């Protein structure tokens, strides 16, 4: 079993003093694996990613990256340390070209290095290369998601956080994106993913963490959960906790 690279210990976080989402959450992600976060809406999956990436300050608890405490570090510093984040939804700058969108992903790199890195990413995404001079708002949804992922890879992150990459994409495109993430993980990048398209995502993941009301309810190898006849109940009624106990 590979060692933990990301650890949450009793983390409490929320969007306002009166709204707590993460409730003493404890979980971890292991090096070179795809860890899948699943659970009903409002369980705190996206909040885990946002808190980890410094977009939300944890009120209590500790977040560690390679054993070092990273609570409250801003995204800029975390990027420099090797964590990148692809948030949910559309995150491109529509009026700028595809190339310029890519470039902005490397804004923290020395300018001299930027060009080489862009070429490296373009090799991985030939579709993006074809659209390089188009306005970002004019490319298709699948291309946009690929561009977003490519933009995050520009920094050669050791950990990639990705939130609901499949939203709005056709099943075929989802498979493509998942395959790509699997390749990345096999090359050594740790992937922490939130995904609603659970069955598909499980097939590509190593491990699944089920969150419920801001807490870890279940931690199993992905293949095991995929076989579990209770998977349905997890989402359509019946508490995860009961199925974990049973």
């Amino acid at each position: 079993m590979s060692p933990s690279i990301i650890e949450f210990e009793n983390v409490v976080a929320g969007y306002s003093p009166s709204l707590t989402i993460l409730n003493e959450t404890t979980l971890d992600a292991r090096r070179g694996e795809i860890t899948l976060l699943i659970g009903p809406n409002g369980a705190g999956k996206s909040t885990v990613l946002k808190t980890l990436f410094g977009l939300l300050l944890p009120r209590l608890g500790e977040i560690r990256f390679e054993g070092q405490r990273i609570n409250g570090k801003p995204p800029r510093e975390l990027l420099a340390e090797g964590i990148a984040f692809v948030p949910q939804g559309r995150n491109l700058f529509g009026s700028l070209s595809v190339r310029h969108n890519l470039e902005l992903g490397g804004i923290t790199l020395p300018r001299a290095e930027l060009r080489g890195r862009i070429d490296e990413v373009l090799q991985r995404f030939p579709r993006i290369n074809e659209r390089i001079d188009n306005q970002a708002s004019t490319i298709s949804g699948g291309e946009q998601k690929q561009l977003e992922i490519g933009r995050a890879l520009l920094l050669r992150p050791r950990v990639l956080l990705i939130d609901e990459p499949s939203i709005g994409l056709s099943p075929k495109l989802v498979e493509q994106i998942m395959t790509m993430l699997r390749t990345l993980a096999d090359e050594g990048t740790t992937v922490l993913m939130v995904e609603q398209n659970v069955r598909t995502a499980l097939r590509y993941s190593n491990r699944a963490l089920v969150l419920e009301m801001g807490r870890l309810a279940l931690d199993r190898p992905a293949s095991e959960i995929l076989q579990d006849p209770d998977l349905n109940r997890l989402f359509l009624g019946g508490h995860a906790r009961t199925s974990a106990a049973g």
Partner: protein
Amino acid sequence: MTASPSLLEVKDIRKHYGAIKAVDGVSLSVDPGEIVGVIGPNGSGKTTLFNSILGQIKPTSGNVEFCGEDITGMSPLQLSRRGVGRTFQTLQVFVKLSVRDNLIAAAQEFKGTMPSRLFAPPDAGLGYHADEMIELFRLKHVAHLPAGSLSYGQQKLIDIAMAFMPAPQLVLLDEPCAGVNPILVDELHDLLVNLNRTQGGSFVVIEHNMDFIMKLCAHVVCMVEGKVLAEGPPAEVQSNRQVLEAYLGN
């Protein structure tokens, strides 16, 4: 007894944003006193459907009938006058008013006319009713604090209590359990059942908490990508293959 006419009749509602079909031909009907649940993965168009029914946005096509009257495209104001109430997905209380004033504000506009309200007592004659509701929702200890100063869960309760203040015939609840702790969720279930029994109103509930929906509703509609994928009794929808696939991928 002949089949009673339905209270709400939604016929083939569509809401398109350019090429994106947020709601794509949804029909549903709600009988008097019935509690209908609407489920579906994120982005399946549930809230857009609500907003189209409630006049918050204008549907591209289709129509909505309430008590046999065509109410398509009516403003929220006109709808509330006809007895259609709602709660919102995000918190929507009057932050600077006290809890009690929030409840009175939710119902006072249905009493008398605007000029007559100018000469009405300050509580518009609703003080007693508001206090009853405060008792029911166990908000007595905070009744005189500004609503904005309370916790998320408490504000959510106020939000729901407000919708029921004018005793509407139909209430549409948009994710009443979101951000509410598990103990409160159980209480909420009891409250809604209680209100359904005492006020006799019908509800349509959007909710992701499946236990809640399955316990509360007699009829469940599952939406996926703007369409109704399945509907029927909760147990049936729960075990429907397509529904499972929609939630879990295939």
